[in-house]
């Protein structure tokens, strides 16, 4: 029986706590009697017979007819699937998407369906490489569909292949992939890594365009979502659900397949990273000492390769299929079951180690914008009810935060860093002054459509993710990073963790309460 999440009150006997620092980590001693550490629940047991569970879900959907009854010869079937941004780290083969899509294809073949397109629901993310697609879908699916042009990646900048379905009463345009829109059935294959994934966000975001996305990927939505992980308090969720109403009226019939995974994040060589420090044995301590010392002497590129090659052992814990909203209700409950940790009250200082990966740097570089987004956009928002840190409190992150970008994946990020953040770091201001030009830049569009680049507007969205945290916190400090780079982000650099606490005392006084959010693994703090 896996143990639930746990909040440790730090006392004098508490050992130093693990802090991620990008592609390395350190142990930091937290002040006794006023610090606490939040640990994620242990991994839930995975489903033993995954293929049977998939088939069962397809044949016994929620509030919808079984999939075989929806399939008929001559129909237009489109299967869309979540892209490389999840799960994190990538899972060992076979990926859940491969298993689910193979099952759907088997049923389609049995029903005599031969017009099948498989589309990666990229939204404005980067196109994946062949290797990445093969990892995700398996060689059988790839070889059968890709060479015939029936497996491809959504292109939100192809005006001929987008369809406007309508507008919500709030004037939000709903535009999705034309092939998906005109299909007799759209099967969506999701992996729900966090509570905001899935539901109408799968199709209304994953298959949409800038024209649609701008209605909810903006500072107003982000600043008014408390948080993204709580559907009832998320403007992002509400906007996607309003769009879902339009999809229901004017869009294709959708068969939603949602899956959840456990938080078994690290392979055995790194499993100490998921353990609670006081439970480390001699071997864990030796692994930590040896690996952190070796990593600090390893060139950055090699370090990155080591971490990006990690394949997580996390595995499927649930699968549900059928009507979008009914399915998502079950999925969300399953995500909460794995990730929720009850926490009593807020803290003056929230600390978080930023790891090597986030949804947007798989096989890539965690650039400074993504550091901000991971800390303030994702980790800060992993709460229900109220943020872990009190209003006006301080966030301390640990990360090297170098001025380094992947030129192929993140070209517009470089310009955002060099030309936008030098002018302003205020989300609403940079949104008003710069977003449109980046979104409409022909070169960025070209790189997004033909290369492996995130869309020109994407760095803005990353910055917006953090806008609620920016509004909420009194100061953001990054420990161990490149000082000029951190200053350009608008944050305060500190050389050591103790320096950071000293700097924070200007805002929160000399004896602040401190909470360390010990993630990864991913969890959601249910703050009472």
């Amino acid at each position, binding site marked *: 029986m896996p143990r639930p999440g746990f909040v440790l009150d730090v006392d004098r006997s508490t050992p130093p706590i693990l802090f991620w620092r990008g592609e390395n980590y350190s142990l930091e001693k937290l002040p006794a009697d006023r610090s606490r550490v939040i640990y994620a629940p242990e991994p839930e047991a995975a489903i033993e017979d995954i293929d049977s569970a998939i088939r069962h879900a397809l044949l016994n959907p929620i509030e919808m007819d079984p999939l075989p009854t929806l399939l008929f010869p001559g129909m237009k079937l489109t299967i869309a699937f979540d892209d490389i941004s999840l799960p994190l780290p990538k899972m060992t083969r076979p990926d859940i998407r491969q298993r689910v899509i193979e099952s759907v294809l088997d049923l389609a073949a049995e029903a005599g369906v031969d017009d099948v397109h498989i589309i990666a629901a990229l939204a404005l993310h980067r196109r994946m490489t062949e290797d990445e697609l093969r990892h995700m879908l398996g060689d059988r699916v790839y070889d059968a569909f890709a060479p015939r042009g029936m497996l491809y990646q959504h292109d939100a900048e192809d005006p001929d292949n987008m369809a406007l379905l309508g507008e919500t009463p709030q004037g939000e345009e709903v535009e999705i992939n034309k092939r998906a829109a005109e299909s007799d059935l759209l099967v969506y294959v999701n992996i729900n890594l966090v509570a905001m994934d899935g539901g109408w966000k799968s199709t209304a975001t994953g298959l949409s365009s800038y024209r649609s996305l701008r209605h909810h990927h903006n500072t107003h939505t982000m600043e008014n979502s408390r948080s993204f992980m709580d559907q009832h308090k998320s403007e992002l969720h509400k906007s996607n659900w309003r769009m879902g109403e339009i999809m229901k009226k004017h869009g294709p019939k959708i068969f939603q397949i949602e899956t959840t995974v456990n938080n078994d994040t690290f392979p055995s060589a790194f499993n100490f990273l998921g353990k609670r420090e006081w439970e480390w044995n001699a071997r864990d301590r030796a692994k930590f000492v040896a690996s952190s010392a070796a990593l600090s002497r390893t060139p950055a590129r090699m370090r990155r390769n080591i971490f990006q090659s990690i394949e997580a052992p996390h595995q499927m814990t649930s699968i549900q299929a059928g009507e979008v909203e009914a399915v998502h209700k079950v999925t969300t409950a399953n995500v909460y079951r794995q990730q929720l940790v009850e926490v009593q009250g807020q803290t003056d200082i929230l600390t978080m180690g930023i790891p090597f990966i986030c949804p947007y740097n798989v096989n890539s570089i965690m650039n400074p914008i993504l550091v901000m987004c991971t800390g303030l956009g994702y980790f800060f928002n992993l709460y229900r009810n109220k943020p872990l840190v009190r209003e006006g409190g301080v966030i301390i992150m640990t990360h090297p935060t170098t001025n380094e970008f992947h030129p192929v994946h993140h070209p517009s990020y470089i*310009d955002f860093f*060099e030309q936008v953040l030098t002018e302003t770091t205020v989300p609403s201001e940079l949104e008003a002054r710069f977003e449109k030009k980046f979104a409409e830049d022909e070169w960025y569009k070209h790189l997004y459509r033909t290369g492996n680049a995130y869309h020109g507007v994407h760095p803005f969205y990353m910055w917006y993710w953090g806008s609620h945290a920016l509004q909420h916190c009194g100061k953001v400090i990054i420990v161990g990073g490149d000082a000029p780079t951190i200053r350009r982000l608008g944050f305060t650099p500190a050389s050591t963790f103790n320096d950071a606490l000293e700097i924070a005392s200007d805002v929160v006084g000399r004896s602040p309460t401190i909470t360390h959010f010990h993630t990864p693994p991913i969890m959601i703090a249910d703050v009472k």
Partner: protein
Amino acid sequence: MKALRVDRSTGRFMLARLVSGIDTGTAAKIGPLTLANCEPPTLVNNEWQRVHPLLTGICGSDLATVEGHASTYFEHWVSFPFVPGHEIVGTLDSGERVVIEPVLGHAARGAELPFPDAAPGDGDDYAHLAMPPLEPGIQIGFCNSTGGGWATELIAHASQIHTIASDMPDERAVLVEPVAGGIHAALLAISHAAKTEAPIFAVLGAGTMGLCAIAALRKYSPHATIIVGARYPAQTQLAKMFGATSVVKPDELMRAVRHATGCHVVGDYLSSGAHVTIDAVGNSDSIALSLRMTRPRGRIVLMGMPSEVTVDLTGLWHRETQVMGAYTYGTETFPNGARKRTFLLAIELANEIHAEQMLSATYPLSEYQQALRHASEAGARGAIKVAFDMRQEKLR
């Protein structure tokens, strides 16, 4: 008179060149420059007047000379020994305050003007620069006969003398000459993009000359997008104040230009780019960068003195890029046909932008080694322009 003098000494030039990479102050000490008591220059005729410098700036070309980096090109266009210094505000014997337009033009040498009312820098034949009655010299500050501004005295021809108003401070007036250079370069840029409603100009380098060009671009092309590559915070601050649309680090400039134009990147080059790039640095790297970010059939205005450079010109050939030097000033012709002396425009602009903001430090002649060191490290030390101050010199 008291003067800093450059003597023709190959050995000292070589030594200065060797040492300058380590320390300009030492280069000044062991190089061709000496502080001396010399005879004042002789007035050539009654069209010449004595000028007693109050402040004289230290320019990049002066530093190149002192550090032994000047091109051999100038061997036949200068005469030794000479007193450097051509950014001059001073007084005449009458007490009248003047700024000096240093180019030794046709009038100063008694030659026929290339056109009526031509300024010293005008014309398409430079023969007069090496002709009597003066020793060869392109400007005051490079001519044995006239002396230069790093002294307590020099001579200037009537065609070079501009009276300034009493309310113009010396600290502003000493910058009129570089402002004139900036205006000239800016107008060369603007004329190339005259038919474009909202041209895009890139300025590489934001030392004194780059800043002056930015101010002039903004004044004479109010709707232009001006993107500046500046290395240091003080430069960034002034570039914005003088009208730059955006200021980025030099290695970020090409991306900023691309973003402003919305063009593509093909290999190392932008597919389009700035209408005109003003290169206020003038070395191999800056010229190569200018070629990469200037649009096909665009223009590069070389404002910084380049000396010997190594550049792949294939892109220039393919893109039919114009590369144009911008040496000093003269008579400017505006798109509407109006003509005006650059120096008069410069006095106007220097007042408008309060050019004294660029003057960061002054030194007496006796502290020339510190002054030159400061000037050569200006950017890194948060400075823009360093000048000699002769207002307290006994020999004035």
